[in-house]
């Protein structure tokens, strides 16, 4: 059984290789090959899960050593996989949600000429993500980390003929590079500190290491997590990443890849446990991001960007929980899994709406769609209820636990973090209600509008099949798209309850992450009650603004905060002024130094080597007689040297 772990990765990797190298002859069947291999990986994951459940809780970690890549002295780069409860959770989430989204994409990408390539990239992503969560050392994890970055880049820019998509892909890549640099520095620090980067020996050695070094490693890991998980200050790429096809947004930029940062922090729990300062930084980042994302989500009229803000905010919750240490790790992962269900479901719902609306993304041009797309409405609605934390649904359990844990941190910090988390819950209720009302309720604002307002310049290419200026005819999506949405809706409704009742999830993950109950200054009941009150307040405000009054088709100017939030709270302006301009000045001065000093030296060397080459070349004159002379001379020198060596 334990030797099957590599197959989990091999199946989608094979799919990627076959689909990307197979050429056009696979165009007809490529999408099914990709889906089948994703599903195969999921089935294998379930089998391994069953096997794992049969073992005692403390003996569930298994490893598979594949090979060593050039062992040199103390540098041991092993390709070893580790399957424990934490990675098992991720394997099931990645392959399960991944398979559903593969299936959904069969319908969603039906009219795209490059569908085979799309599935190849999706399979590549699955393989890289599984490598990331199954790696037994940080170096191998880094391989997966870069792999998902590559897949994300390729998929955001999948419609590369759109300049906006190409730019968004580049932006995601560049911003992620900053985070990746953090991870590589962390790995180097680990190697100099511990002499290895395999999980077990690193964690075992933590106790014997100074806190300063651990804090440095922790902060670098946090930087990596910020990049991959779109946390402040490296959050700016996620909104633009919505340029990718919607299934990509659902799988990579909502359910799985963006949660890799949370995985990294929880996996490195042993390091963070011993570095309270790094942990504090993690909680601050989480709290700031959860508010940041929520505020951005309130102001967006693009349905996918509103959901992207929400993703950022929800991952902020997870990061906050992970920063709380052993009281939060389990809940971070639990929220990650439930969020994987409902956010993927919401994105697929959004994709289904766009599919029926000529790929329109502006919610101001939606309205009253519940009649036309009943299945989408119900599944989206269940996802909505789950994310705002409606009692009994998934989000209720997982988010509530995080808020409780934040208070349980104790002291002023506990109050601030708990308060931020509570406030975030209220804003979540507000912006999600807004999305719900603008899309599915109210008057049908899309009627008679299409001719009056020309389409947005950046329509997705599928629009060509519907006619450019026709009035949309909203319709329900085909079964291949609705079935994944229904399955995910079940997850959104029940997962939280299944995990929470009897603390099943806590007991499941405890052997890996450890768990401790904090001492909350307020009772759990009070927290729950406060959350619910704020939930109602958020919903009520949204209803007052968007349910009772008609929604203007052209966005009003709005307050200063609204305008700032529409511009993603000025993140790009900030980056431009501080980083781009500053960077430009720095590069300009470096370029000057490079041109004058470095190039001078390099070009001088190159010119002299080239000149030498030209002169030596003339010795090769093509006459066998001069070659023979050269050989004779060489032999004479050889003999003379040999004799000389003896003489001296």
């Amino acid at each position, binding site marked *: 059984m334990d030797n099957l772990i590599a197959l989990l990765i091999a199946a989608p990797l094979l799919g990627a290789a076959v689909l990307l190298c197979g050429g056009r002859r696979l165009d007809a069947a490529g999408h099914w090959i990709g889906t089948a291999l994703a599903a195969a990986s999921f089935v294998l994951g379930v089998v391994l899960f069953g096997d794992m459940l049969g073992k005692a809780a403390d003996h569930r970690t298994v490893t598979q050593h594949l090979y060593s890549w050039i062992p040199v002295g103390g540098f041991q780069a092993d390709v070893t996989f580790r399957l424990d409860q934490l990675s098992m959770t991720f394997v099931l989430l990645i392959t399960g949600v991944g398979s559903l989204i593969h299936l959904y994409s069969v319908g969603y990408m039906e009219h795209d000429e490059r569908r085979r390539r799309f599935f190849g990239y999706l399979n590549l992503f699955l393989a890289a993500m599984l490598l990331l969560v199954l790696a037994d050392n940080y170096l191998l994890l880094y391989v997966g980390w870069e792999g998902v970055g590559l897949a994300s880049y390729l998929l955001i820019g999948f419609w590369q003929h759109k300049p906006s998509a190409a730019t968004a892909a580049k932006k995601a890549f560049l911003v992620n590079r900053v985070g990746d640099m953090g991870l590589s520095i962390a790995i180097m620090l680990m190697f100099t500190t511990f002499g290895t980067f395999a999980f077990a020996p690193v964690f075992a050695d933590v106790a014997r290491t100074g806190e300063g070094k651990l804090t440095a490693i922790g902060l670098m890991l946090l930087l990596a997590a910020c990049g991959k998980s779109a946390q402040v200050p490296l959050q700016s790429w996620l909104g633009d990443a919505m340029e990718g096809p919607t299934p990509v947004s659902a799988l990579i930029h909502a359910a799985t890849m963006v949660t890799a940062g949370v995985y990294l922090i929880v996996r490195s729990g042993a390091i963070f446990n011993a570095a309270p300062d790094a942990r504090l930084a993690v909680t601050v980042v989480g709290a700031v991001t959860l508010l940041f994302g929520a505020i951005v989500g309130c102001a967006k009229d693009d349905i996918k960007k509103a959901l992207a803000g929400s993703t950022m905010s929800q991952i902020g919750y997870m990061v906050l929980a992970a920063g709380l240490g052993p009281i939060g790790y389990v809940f971070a992962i639990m929220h990650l899994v439930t969020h994987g269900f409902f956010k993927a479901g919401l994105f697929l719902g959004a994709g289904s709406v766009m599919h029926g609306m000529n790929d329109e993304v502006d919610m101001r041009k939606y309205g009253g769609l519940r009649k036309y797309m009943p299945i989408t409405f119900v599944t989206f609605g269940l996802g909505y209820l789950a994310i705002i934390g409606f009692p009994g649904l998934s989000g209720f359990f997982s988010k509530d636990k995080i808020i409780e844990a934040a208070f349980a941190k104790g002291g002023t910090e506990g109050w601030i973090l708990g308060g931020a988390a509570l406030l975030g819950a209220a804003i979540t209720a507000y912006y999600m209600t807004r999305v719900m009302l603008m899309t599915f309720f109210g008057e049908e604002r899309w009627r008679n509008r299409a001719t009056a307002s020309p389409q947005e310049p950046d329509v997705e290419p599928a629009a060509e099949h519907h006619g450019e200026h026709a009035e949309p005819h909203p319709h329900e999506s085909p079964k291949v798209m609705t079935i994944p949405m229904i399955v995910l809706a079940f997850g959104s409704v029940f997962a939280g309850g299944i995990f929470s009742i009897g603390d099943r999830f806590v007991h499941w993950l405890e052997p890996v992450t450890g768990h401790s109950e904090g001492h909350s200054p307020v009772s759990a009941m009070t927290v729950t009650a406060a959350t619910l009150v704020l939930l109602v307040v958020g919903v009520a405000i949204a209803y007052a603004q968007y349910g009772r009054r008609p929604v203007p088709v052209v966005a009003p100017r709005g307050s200063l905060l609204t305008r700032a939030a529409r511009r993603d709270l000025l993140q790009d302006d900030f980056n431009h002024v501080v980083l781009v301009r500053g960077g430009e000045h720095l590069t300009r001065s470096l370029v000057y130094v490079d041109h004058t000093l470095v190039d001078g030296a390099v070009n001088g060397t190159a010119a002299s080597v080239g000149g030498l080459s*030209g002169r030596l070349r003339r010795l090769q004159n093509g006459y066998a007689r001069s070659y023979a002379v050269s050989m004779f001379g060489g032999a004479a020198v050889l003999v003379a040297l040999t004799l000389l060596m003896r003489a001296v």
Partner: protein
Amino acid sequence: MSTAAVHSLWTTAADPISRIQAPKIEYGQLSPTLIVIGAALVGVLIEAFVPRASRYYAQVFVSVVALAAAFAAVVALAADGYGTTKAHIAAMGAIAVDGPSLFLQGTILLAGLLGVFTFAERRLDPAAHGNRVDSFAAQAASVPGSESEKAAMKAGFTTTEAFPLLLFAVGGMLVFPSANDLLTLFVALEVFSLPLYLLCALARRKRLMSQEAAVKYFLLGAFASAFTLFGIAMLYGYAGSVSYARIAQVVEGTVTNVDPALANTMGNDVLLLIGAAMIAMGLLFKVAAVPFHMWTPDVYQGAPTPVTGFMAAATKVAAFGALLRLLYVVLPGLRWDWRPVMWAVAIVTMLGGAIVAITQTDIKRMLAYSSIAHAGFILAGVIATTRDGVSSVLFYLAAYSFVTIGAFAVVTLVRDAGGEATHLSKWAGLGRRSPLVAAVFAVFLLAFAGIPLTSGFAGKFAVFKAAAEGGATPLVVIGVISSAIAAFFYVRVIVLMFFSEPRPEGPTVAVPSPLTMTAIGVGVAVTLALGVAPQYFLDLASQAGVFVR
């Protein structure tokens, strides 16, 4: 010579015939060589008796089967433990059956097999008068441009003799690294050299250039052989024997019974040093080390490209094998004398090859200089004089031969009206028109340059590590500098292929038959496999890294 000695010679010759004992030959252990030589003889018979039309198929079949069978025999011997525990000296002390022998023989046989595939390619050149043709001349004996040549072409002749010639060359190469006395060494040297001289002259296009290359190769090769033979004579004079073991004993001073006839010369160190240097020179000529490298660019350029690929790979393997055995088995006691000399040769070879390659404009000449630079890198591993040194050289040779055959096979694909388009400027923009071929060639170039995740990196890393541990750190520094220089001209070709505008009247990429595709595919696969997971093969080379004495 004293009268007593003369008398003894007479009496020896006059002894009854029964005093000569029949040699004991371990046919099973020599089977790889015997299979290949046998198949070569069958090939000669095919030329004599099989109708012209079916000769090609018969020759290809016999060659492929023989090489595959010989490789299977090598694997069987290795599996039987002849590479490690049962290693010994066979055929009355003439042939060593040990780890390095078997490893190198396996490499040579695989290189030969891929070589046969590229030799047998008949889809690249346009059919002449309705007959499929390969890279070889219609009739090698006809004067270029003459009426008889035209008649031969019209009749659809092809030089199918190339296949038995290749088998004879492979046969000699199999013996060369396992030769355990100097005479066997010399015979093997000639057995594999002569067919190569002929093969070089067989090009279908640019025949004058091809024949010029062959003549140069032959003249210089004969010149080098003469040195080798002279060196062998001197070592015989020094040790009174041509056997490696015996010479090594004399070098170490552990010999007691001295042949009275040789008492005057035996133990004379001047003879030893001069002789050793001259034999080494012959071997350095074959591996194309500076300053014995001058033939390489001309021959590589003039020879038919499949021959170049095979020769560049297999000759290097065989010659380095022989050099290793000479230095590690015969002359370890002389280490302090030959190491500084080899240092000097390695340094000028690495730098010379890399520097001169920069200004080359012909892809085949560039690869020739690249092979010279690689000879220098391998010499760095030879100099280590440790077990790691041996195994790193073995690994490097295996990795290098697959890259080389693959790279030259790609060169055969890029063609214009005049045959192969080998001028570098014609390769501009190839990546736009034929992305797959350009990408494959880029993989080979990156492997030559020693970029990680290719076999070139693993090999270079292994030899430099061995050299550094063997106390040759300055050599490693120079090696890395040469690698940096070499990276320039490899990467330049990649830049040229992918980032330049294609020329309007540029060459086309011919679609090869599965034969060449196999050769290229195996080359790429081995290059990547040895780069991604080198450890297994490094272990294999390490196990094989002990010479039997």
